[in-house]
C-alpha cells in the first residue's frame, strides 16, 4: 500500500493573506520518513509536517496516478530542479478538483483517508505489504 498526498505550503497555510497558495503533490510508501524529511526544516513549535489530503491505494495505482498528475499539473509548476519541481502554484481547491476528477475519470483504485496525517496519527494508516 502506498499514499498519494497533498501537502500545503506551511507559510500559506498559516497566513494565506501574506503568502502565495502552493502545495506539493507526492507519493510515498514510507510516510514516517517523508514527514520526517519535511519536518527537518521547521521547529515543531512552529510547524508540524502534515499531509493535508491523503489517498491510499496499491503501489501500481498510486505510481500511475502520480505520473498522470505530474503531466496534468505541469503548467502549474513554477520552477524545476531539486526541491522545486513538486511545488504547484495556484489554488489548493483547483489541485484537489484536478485530483478528484482524475481519480474519477481514470478510475484509479485509491481511497481518500479523509483527514490530515502527521506523525501524531500515523497509526491510523494500515499500509500493509504490497506485492510490488
Amino acid at each position, binding site marked *: 500500500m502506498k499514499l498519494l498526498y497533498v501537502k500545503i505550503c506551511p507559510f500559506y497555510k498559516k497566513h494565506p493573506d*501574506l*503568502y*502565495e497558495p502552493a502545495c506539493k503533490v507526492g507519493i510515498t510508501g514510507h510516510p514516517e520518513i517523508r514527514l520526517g524529511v519535511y519536518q527537518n526544516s521547521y521547529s515543531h513549535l512552529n510547524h508540524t509536517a502534515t499531509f493535508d489530503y491523503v489517498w491510499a*491505494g*496499491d503501489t*501500481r*495505482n498510486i505510481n*500511475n*496516478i502520480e*505520473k*498522470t498528475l505530474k*503531466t*496534468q499539473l505541469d*503548467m502549474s*509548476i*513554477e*520552477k*524545476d*530542479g531539486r526541491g*522545486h*519541481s513538486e511545488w504547484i502554484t495556484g489554488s489548493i481547491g483547483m489541485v484537489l478538483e484536478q485530483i478528484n*476528477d*482524475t481519480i*474519477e*475519470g*481514470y*478510475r*484509479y*483504485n*485509491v481511497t481518500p483517508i479523509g483527514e490530515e496525517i502527521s506523525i501524531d496519527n500515523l497509526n491510523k494508516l494500515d499500509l500493509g505489504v504490497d506485492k510490488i
Partner: protein
Amino acid sequence: MSKNTGKVGAYNRQTEIKQFLKKFEKPFDMKDDAIDTRTMAENYPHGIIPLEDISQAIDIVLGPNKRPKVRTFDPELQGYLHFDWYLWDQLYLWPRFQRDVAPNHIFKIEGDWDDTCPIVPCAIRVTIDGVVYVFIWDGHHTVQNMKRQGYTKFPVWFLDVDKMIEDGVEVPEEFDDIVEFAVNKAGTNMVRINSRNKRKLSAYDEFMILLEVKDSATVSMNNILSATGYLPKRHPVEGGFTQIKSGQTIFEMTDDYGTKGKYFKRALAFQKRTWPMAPAELEVWRPMALLYKQCEIEGFTLDEQFDIELGEKLVELYGDPSSTQEALKELYYDALHEQGFTEPRIHDQWRVYDALISVYKKEIGRLDLPQAQCRF
C-alpha cells in the same frame, strides 16, 4: 516572481517557459523532444508561426548554457556556397565520400516521384587537371531519379573549392592540399547528414501531416478516433491517442466484408466507456480488438453487456487502464512461472489477450469466449 522575495533568481527553465508562454493565449508544451507547434499555431492568424518565435522557444528550452557563441555570419558574402543549375555531363560521383548506389532505392523513389518533391542535391566543385568536376555528396539517388525522369538541368547546392583556392584559404596541417580538405568536408557532411544527425519523422508527425493532406486511410482512422472521443497526441495526455503505428495496424484489420476499422473502433469505445479520461492504453485496446476479431471468426457474439461487465470488473480488480494492463501481464507471468506453458506468448498483446479471457471466464463467465493459448 514571488510577492515575498521580489527578486528574480538564476535561470530556471520552468520559470522561463512559463514567462514565455504568458505572451500566448493558448499555452503549449515546450519539451526537449518536441515544442508543440500545432497547439502553438492556434495563437496565430491562419496558424502561421514566424520562425523567430520558434527560435525564441528553442533558446528557452535549451537554456543559456547550450546557446552558441553570438556571431553574425553571411554565407552569401563568404562566397563559397552557391546554388546553380548544371547539365548532366558536368556531374560526377567520387565514391571516396559517397555510398554505393542502390538501384532498388531509386526504383522505390520513382514509384513515389513528383516533380515538386526533389530536394537540392549537395556537392563540391573543384578543378582537377583542368577539368571542372561537380561531385555530389548528398542526393545522388535523387539526381539519378531526375535523370530517369527526363530532367535536362539539375539543381545543385555546392561548395566552391576553386574559389577557396583562389582566395588562398589556409589548409589545416593534416591535409596535403585544399582538395583533400574539401573531400574531408564532403565526407564528414555526408555522414553527418545521412547518419549522425538524421531524425526520422515520428509516427505522430507523419499522421498529422497525412491528415492535413487528406490521405484517405488517415482521415478514416482519425474519424474513428474522434467518434470514440480520442485525439491523436504525441504524449499520453487526457483523452490522447499516441500509438499511431499500432493503431494503423489494428485499423487495417478487416472483417468478412473487407471493412477496415471495425475492431479498432469497438476496442477504443470499450476503453472510453470504461476509463473516460484516460489516454488510450495500447495493451488494453489492442488485445481487446484482437479478441473482438477472434470472437467473430469463431462465431461468438459479444453483446454490449460484455463490454460493460468486463470493463467494470477490470476497474474493480485493477483500477486505471495502465494498472490494468500491468496487472494482466503480471497474471500471465505468474502463471508462466508457476505452471509453465507449452507455447508461451512472445508479445504483450497476446499475453494480455490470454489474461483477459482468463479473467472473464473466472470472474464473469456469462458468454463463451475463444480458448486462450495460455490458460490460467
